[in-house]
């Protein structure tokens, strides 16, 4: 955004005697030490009296501040004349005369003048004055140095900068520049505008209205409204200023838009592809199906992938959705080409190097770059391998259950896996550090949020827990209401900015909660068997798919779909 050099010049035509208005600010009250300025008194004369001090229905907004912020916004937007008119009509100057003088001096690189102007601004906090002086003198120093006047620069350093008694480290750096090493080459001259901005950050806020102040205040209000909106799941995520934002319930998928019948037995797993263009499903009928999403939002069967000899428990997409990895229950892992539906590889536990146990794989998935995959063996062994059978990493868990899960962050640095029955281990590969998510009940499955800062953990006690894992793992929210007693039921993140959590349930319903507040929003009827897994389309916040024991997959959408 173009910075406004169009602010009013220091001298302008003033009507009668404009007061500067009361600068009500909590830090230092302005001093009356400045002879050239009008005294900063209450706006009890001229215009202040007519309109009153405060505006807004709650009496929270100070009139003078409000007008100044608006004036600043007008100038920022480029409406010079409007800005000047407002100053004139309201009698409230955006910047006092002394501030205008200061700005002029800085913008014309007149550092000695800037310093003098700084001192008549009437700032009582000595630390602030010192920091600002340091900044100005630093510019003076650097300018002299650039013009080849090293000795003069040295004098400035010794006589003016060092005595300020602050920022010793920077003083030493400046010395290095003088001798000729250090990064002066890389230190390009700051534009005077930038210097002014830096100074503005140091000085008390009432002197100069901060850049984009009004925009900041409004954005805060909008964010608050958005966070408070429980059904916030619009296709278009912009918010209007005209009315307080509140989505209606119809933004959440709640209607069955399609029933997909392609499997001949219980459907255990569904997952949309990364692009949202495909849906993979896997079933106890020993097959997996790739469905394609049409432009009109309808899905049709693209390929049925046969080859497994056992029920297929999971399907994983590679990053560009060209391949699918499926796992047969205690059997093999197979790799499929999405376009052709051909099986391009199959991996047995022996090839990966697991020798002893009698079981096969129970879970698998692509690692972020698509060149490696992880495999889980009966809850105790995890392995990361390459597709040429190179075994890259092996981990051991301590579970005695027969389901387990694993995830790896996109940077390949953190590996998350089910460690004990009721704990997940987060292994930081680079730092060799382990963190744990400790639960009180057995964990059945989990998923990682898109921003990789959260984990959604499914538990046997019919609760879903949301953990924040950015630093030390912390429990953030619980979701319940669904039923789970015997089966493996999976949940997922979804919706706009992953603001919702959905889960299957043994009572044949699909449950949807608001992630931020944990409120149950929907319990969708439709299936006639337990819903094992759900997946929310990453590209379409209005599309949700669910897989059920009733042999079907349902696609859910909003009423308008």
């Amino acid at each position, binding site marked *: 955004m173009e910075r406004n050099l169009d602010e009013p010049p220091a001298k302008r035509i003033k009507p009668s005697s404009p007061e500067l208005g009361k600068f009500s600010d909590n830090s230092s009250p302005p001093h009356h030490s400045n002879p050239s300025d009008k005294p900063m008194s209450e706006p009890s004369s001229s215009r202040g009296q007519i309109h009153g001090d405060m505006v807004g229905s709650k009496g929270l907004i100070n009139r003078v501040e409000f007008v100044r912020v608006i004036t600043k916004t007008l100038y920022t937007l480029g409406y010079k004349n409007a800005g000047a008119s407002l100053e004139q009509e309201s009698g409230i100057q955006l910047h006092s005369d002394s501030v205008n003088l200061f700005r002029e001096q800085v913008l014309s690189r007149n550092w000695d003048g800037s310093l003098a102007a700084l001192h008549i601004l009437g700032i009582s906090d000595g630390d602030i004055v010192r920091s600002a002086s340091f900044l100005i003198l630093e510019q003076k120093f650097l300018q002299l140095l650039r013009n080849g006047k*090293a*000795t003069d620069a*040295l004098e400035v*350093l*010794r*006589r003016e*900068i*060092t*005595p300020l008694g602050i920022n*010793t480290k920077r*003083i*030493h*750096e*400046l*010395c*290095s520049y*003088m*001798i*000729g*090493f250090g990064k002066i080459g890389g230190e390009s001259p700051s534009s005077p505008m930038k210097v002014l901005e830096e100074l503005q950050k140091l000085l008390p806020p009432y002197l100069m209205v901060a850049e984009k102040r009004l925009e900041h205040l409004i954005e805060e209000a909008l964010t608050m409204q958005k966070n408070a909106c429980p059904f916030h799941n619009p296709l278009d995520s912009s918010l209007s200023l005209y009315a307080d934002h509140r989505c209606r319930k119809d933004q959440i998928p709640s209607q069955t838009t399609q029933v997909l019948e392609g499997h001949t037995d219980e459907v255990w797993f569904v997952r949309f592809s990364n692009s949202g263009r495909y849906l993979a499903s896997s079933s106890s009928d020993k097959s997996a199906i790739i469905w394609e999403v049409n432009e009109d939002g309808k899905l049709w069967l693209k390929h049925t992938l046969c080859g497994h000899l056992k029920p297929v428990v999971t399907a994983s997409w590679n990053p560009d959705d060209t391949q699918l990895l499926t796992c047969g229950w205690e059997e093999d892992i197979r790799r499929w080409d999405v376009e052709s539906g051909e099986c391009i590889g199959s991996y047995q536990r022996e090839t990966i190097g697991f020798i002893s146990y009698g079981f096969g794989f129970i879970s698998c998935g692509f690692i972020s770059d698509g060149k490696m995959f992880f495999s889980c063996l009966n809850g105790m062994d995890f392995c990361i391998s390459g597709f040429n059978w190179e075994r890259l990493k092996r981990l051991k868990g301590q579970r005695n259950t027969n389901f387990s899960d694993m995830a790896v962050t996109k940077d390949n640095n953190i590996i998350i896996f089910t460690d004990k029955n009721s704990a997940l281990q987060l292994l930081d590969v680079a730092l060799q550090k382990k963190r744990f998510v400790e639960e009180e009940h057995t964990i059945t499955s989990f998923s990682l949020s898109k921003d990789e800062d959260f984990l959604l953990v499914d538990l046997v006690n019919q609760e879903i827990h949301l953990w924040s894992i950015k630093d030390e793992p912390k429990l953030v929210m619980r979701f319940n209401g669904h039923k789970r007693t015997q089966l493996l039921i999976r949940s997922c993140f979804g919706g706009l900015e992953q603001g919702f959590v959905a889960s299957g349930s043994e009572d044949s319903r699909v449950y949807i909660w608001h992630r931020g507040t944990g409120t149950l929003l929907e319990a969708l009827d439709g299936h006639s068997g337990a819903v094992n897994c759900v997946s929310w389309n990453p590209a379409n916040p209005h599309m949700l798919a669910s897989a059920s024991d009733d042999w079907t997959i349902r696609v859910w959408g909003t009423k308008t779909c």
Partner: protein
Amino acid sequence: MMELDPRQYEHVAISDADVRNIVLSYLIHNCFKETADAFLTSTGMKHPVDYLVDMDKRKSIFHFALEGNALEAIELTQQLAPNLLEANMDLHFDLLSLHFIDLVRSRKCKEALEFGQKSLTPFGKVQKYVTKLEEFIALLAYEEPERSPMFQLLSPEYRQNIADSLNRAILAHAKLPAYSSLEKLIQQITVVREYLQQELAKDAPPPFSLKAFLNS
């Protein structure tokens, strides 16, 4: 092997010649020429080869360094031991910095600035000198360098340190011992006593204190 109680050391026999050598090595190391001469004459010991010539030069070099007159010290060192400073970059750097500090001490800041730009900047290319360089150069920022955080650079102790290093380097260059035997002996005793203290705890003799020893 007789039972030796560390506290009863008077029984150990020492040869006189050994003692004299220790004293002589100390005198030579510290360039006490006249004293060394007198000692040699009184004890009738033989003069070591060439020691006189070197000692004079070494003495002046040492004193120049001690005063902070690094340029003279460098000049003489180049005469006495031509490739010493090239081989000893660290030492060369320390000496040049000493000159810089001297200029700052005499408040000749402009000269210091120029000298720094000319002679010290080339060292800035090597990472290990950079931190030290930054410290020296920073002295320029202060009108009263003695009050700056780097005040110890101006102290006589600092110069003593460098003078000592230079002395040792010259001795080593001439294939003479870099530390006098007396120094080494005292260091050894201190370590042995410390070790005994750790081993024997309360039974051990107290840590070695030269002062206490001399007073006993």
